[in-house]
């Protein structure tokens, strides 16, 4: 799951931005290209690809800051005890 999620996330970001050399711990917000449009695309991608809805309390900038952070988010959302509800 971890490797699959990582590969999926990397593929999505690099397809959008083929010119960048992306590392898993790289702060994508520091690259300067993330706007609200791309943020929404990221949210939709995570929800569609991993079959979950991101609850409000998980929708934080730090959770989308890097591939590693997003992989951790996906793990939390797919954990058996995860309760996806808007709080």
């Amino acid at each position, binding site marked *: 799951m971890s490797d699959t999620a990582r590969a999926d996330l990397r593929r999505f970001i690099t397809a959008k931005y*083929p010119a960048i050399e992306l590392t898993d711990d790289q702060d994508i917000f520091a690259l300067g290209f993330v706007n609200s449009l791309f943020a929404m695309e990221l949210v939709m991608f995570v929800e*569609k690809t991993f079959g979950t809805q991101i609850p409000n309390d998980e929708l934080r*900038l730090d959770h989308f800051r890097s591939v590693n952070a997003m992989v951790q988010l996906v793990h939390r959302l797919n954990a058996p005890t995860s309760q996806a509800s*808007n709080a």
Partner: protein
Amino acid sequence: MSTAMSLDPEAVLADVRTFVDDEVVPHAEEFDRTERLPRSLLDRVGQLGLWAPFLSVDIGGAGLDMVTLGRIHEEVGRGCSGLRSMLTVHGMVSWSVGRWGSAEQRDRWLAPLISGDTFGVFCLSEPDSGSDATAAGTLAEADGSGWVINGHKKWITGGQVADLLLVFARTGPGMSAFLVPSQTPGVEITPIPNMLGTRSSMIAEIVLRDVRVGAEAMIGPPGWAAGTVMTGALDLGRYSVACGSVGIVQACLDACVAYTSRRTVHDGRLRDLQLIRRKISDMVTSARAARLLCEHAGRLKDAGDPATIMATWVAKYHASTAATAAASDAVQIHGANGCSPDYPAARLYRDSKIMEIIEGSTEIQQTTIAEEAYREVA
């Protein structure tokens, strides 16, 4: 009462076409002239279940697919862009509550939003910031357990009949969204008359002066993530405007085919002139192309595919500019009649220009779409 929930998409569309042909088109000039939609018409929209039929069944909606929603907004746009604008903003608010609302917010607001008993309006634009949402000056400051909001919103579609405001305001370095009942002390609504187009959409400016709301008024996450609330709602609004623009092109085509078939010139009919036929052909082609772009964006929405966001930008860009081109040709074809209130061409012409400005101007679409092209090739 017939609701979308009890009908299949084709049946809903058939009902909408009948509604538009019988109850909207015959009165569209009057709505435009009086700058108002009658309460009875808005109630009919509720009876047909059209205010927010896209909300999922598990939260009380009808679960209507987005492709069908787009076709509904095209049909309504064919009849009256003012009414379609009302569907747009109310849908944006309803979508936001359905997607980002807490359980309490959903319990309180969704049922009356779905029925239309509560009319929701989207309060983003300000006197000094339209397309540039980051320049918003409205400020929400923490006050005890709640918030105090001060600011000035402008060009608010449906503002004159608003029950619930979705207000975007700065909260510290970021932005947040708030659900504010219009009767809250400190909310002052003033109609804006004599707009160029969509005159019946009852546009208003809304001043918020020391408006106190509880902590429960904030919808969605604060700060950075509020941008996704705004972007998601604007995406739906953009889709609605794109589909409504297709309706304008279709209305221009219908009006011009009818007019040129009756009107004679010299020893023949207008319809036999090649220069007229070129304009008619352009309208047919534009309507079909724009409709396909909207359908593509709608299918991506139904699939939850993030590509829908850019597809919607493209659809709206094409459809809105096609609408202004078709409406310009429609006025030209109608001649002096096209400049009078006796024919729909003048209203369609004025309404079409609004489509190039709302939910992202043509220029913003041009730069955004081009940026995507350069980014993917670079």
